[in-house]
């Protein structure tokens, strides 16, 4: 079973934290800090597995992590998961994020953390691996996003119309229209704001 999935940057700021067992808020923050502390000490060419008496639960649990550019992806698992399998799973997760966000970077994760949660929910459910086929995951996530957009569509129409007009460049209304001999005074229309 996967106990927790954490993503944080090189300074320890959390970018995603998903716990599959209940802990109090304080304990959750402590776990994030402790995990960052353990993982940031590691060199670049050591193995991706860490163990040893952590807050998150004792000798049965391991931390399996991967470091991509500025982000650490850490999965805390117990002994029922295959360690090498989880390493591959992290890779699938990152590749899926890459496909969904188009060349994902840390800023994408920062500003769209709810979307990352939705993608993760299609891969891991209740601490167990749900789906590992990247195309399947992306298909489902796209379908869900479409559903959301179509709902927002009707309700959001007035707001979108207003902002569209605000951005329009209306030409200046002429004060007089002169066509030959006829001079029509243009009535004073209230300015369209």
């Amino acid at each position, binding site marked *: 079973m996967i106990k927790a999935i954490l993503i944080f940057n090189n300074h320890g700021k959390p970018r995603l934290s998903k716990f599959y067992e209940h802990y109090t808020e304080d304990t959750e923050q402590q776990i994030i800090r402790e995990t960052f502390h353990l993982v940031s000490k590691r060199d670049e060419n050591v193995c991706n597995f860490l163990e040893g008496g952590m807050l998150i639960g004792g000798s049965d649990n391991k931390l399996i992590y991967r470091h991509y550019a500025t982000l650490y992806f850490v999965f805390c698992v117990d002994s029922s998961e295959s360690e090498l399998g989880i390493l591959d799973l992290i890779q699938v997760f990152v590749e899926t994020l890459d496909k969904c966000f188009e060349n994902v970077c840390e800023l994408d994760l920062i500003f769209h953390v709810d979307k990352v949660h939705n993608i993760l929910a299609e891969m891991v459910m209740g601490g167990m691996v749900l789906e590992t086929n990247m*195309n399947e995951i992306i298909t489902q996530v796209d379908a869900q996003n479409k559903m959301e957009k179509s709902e927002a569509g009707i309700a959001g129409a007035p707001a979108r119309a207003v902002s569209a007009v605000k951005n329009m460049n209306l030409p200046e209304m002429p004060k007089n229209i002169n066509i030959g001999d006829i001079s029509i005074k243009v009535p004073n229309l209230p300015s369209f704001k």
Partner: protein
Amino acid sequence: MSPSVCLQEMIRVIRGARTQGEERGVIQRECAAIRAQFRQADSGGRSHNLAKLLYVHMLGYPAHFGQMECVRLIASSKYSEKRIGYLGAMMLLDEKQDASLLITNSIKNDLSHSSQHVQSLALCTLACMGSAEMCRDLAPEIERLLKASNSYIKKKAALCAVHIVRKIPELGEMFTPSAHSLLSEKNHGVLHGAVILITELCERNPDNLKQFRKSVPELVQIMKNLVTSGYSPEHNVAGISDPFLQVRILRLLRILGRNNDAASDAMNDLLAQVATNTDSSKTAGSAVLYETVLTIMDIRSESGLRVLAVNILGRFLLNNDRNIRYISMTSLQKIVQTDHTAVQRHRGTIVDCLKDQDASVKRRALELSLALVSAANIRSMMKELLLFLSTCPPELRSHAASGIFNAAGGDVRDETVPNLIQLITAASELHCYTVHKLYRALISDIVQQSLVQVACWCIGEYGDLLLKGECEEITPMQVTEDDVLDALETVLQSHMSTPTSRGFALTAIMKLSTRITNNVDRIRSVVSIYGSCIDVELQQRAVEYNALFKKYDHMRYFTMSYCTVILEFGCRSRLSLVLGY
């Protein structure tokens, strides 16, 4: 800031804060605005507000006032609001809150919703935070969904069922027939979920084991299809067809074949095929190969297959990739009890791994080395382990030291004792832990003389640390002065103790006279009793110590206080000097 500003805008403002205090201020203002919004029951922008609250929660700020809003949003008819509501429920609610019961009804309704996406939201939330009551209520719904025609829902329902079985094992019976039938699905996601469900059912209840053993041929067939099928772009990871599913099935086969000849026979061919044909140049292949090896070692496989398995592990021990070396040592640890001689063949490589730079690899190597210590190799192993102890990282030192003590128990020669003592004195931060551990070892067993000698010496030297009670790395135990003296006297009186051990015990008792306050009289009487002991060596010591008490009490503290490098003989010669012998 406008109340219905979106999540991104708030994040931008928070990131603009230059200090922690400024960030706190921004977040407090935002939370106050969100709270006010929640109270208004205003329907616009509700999902934005909850999203903002969840972001703030991730950063570590309190967000409990959002719990009821989650309940409200889950009950909404709009998908976007349900989505964020369920996410909020998973992050903010748990069994202990009353609010979690309130969403049971919404989940029940959503499980029968026409849209599969809404159903999946409900399933996901139930699997993540469903309490025992919720699970009991909704189990029949889940069972119904297991038979649905939609494979997307089926796979989610399978994992939800696993969660239910974990919470309420008795409900496992409800899912057994469906689990069986799920094995004939083609969809890999559903198969994966089914295998996890069957694994959980078998682990919880041995009766299920008997039932699911009948599925072994089916599982073997699925594996065969995966292994022999051509390239399938959908599930391919580095040339292996769906390694995740393969690993799961192998694990299930291990549970089913354990202690059962018939089931083990049925899998032999398959395991041989996987072991020889899997390409292990990438992680995916290695994962499958390891799982195969572990399964071979755990079931009643034929000896040829076992030899093949241990050889594969040995080969991986020499792999350049540290991950693979780590994993192979983990696997060897699992089989070292049952196939000791096979693992001994690789002792050299394992001991070399003690010198690896990587702390994780070092830890695995230490565990395995301690397990491999035997009467035949004790001397060379002790040398390596002591060398390791002097250079190992601090977090491994206590584990290494206690392992060495236990291993050193019966078979070690006398010169190891002073070496060990010397090492202990050098590792000052270990004193408290060491004396606690050795005291516990002493009260449980006084047969191993070297252990007894080192234990007595430590108790004498660091008795005050023992009596203080607290020690970081182990569970605390109240030790009174009487307890300690009882333990040392037991050593003195036991017919199993050698004269050397008795000498250690007596000296330790004497040393304690300067470290304890209440029982000095008891010490005095013990020492004087041994003044007429038959053992000459012991008698001489007792007489000298007696003299310290009687004529030279003022010097007792000096002679019995902490020594930095002590060898039993050294202490005695100092005494002789003092007493003019």
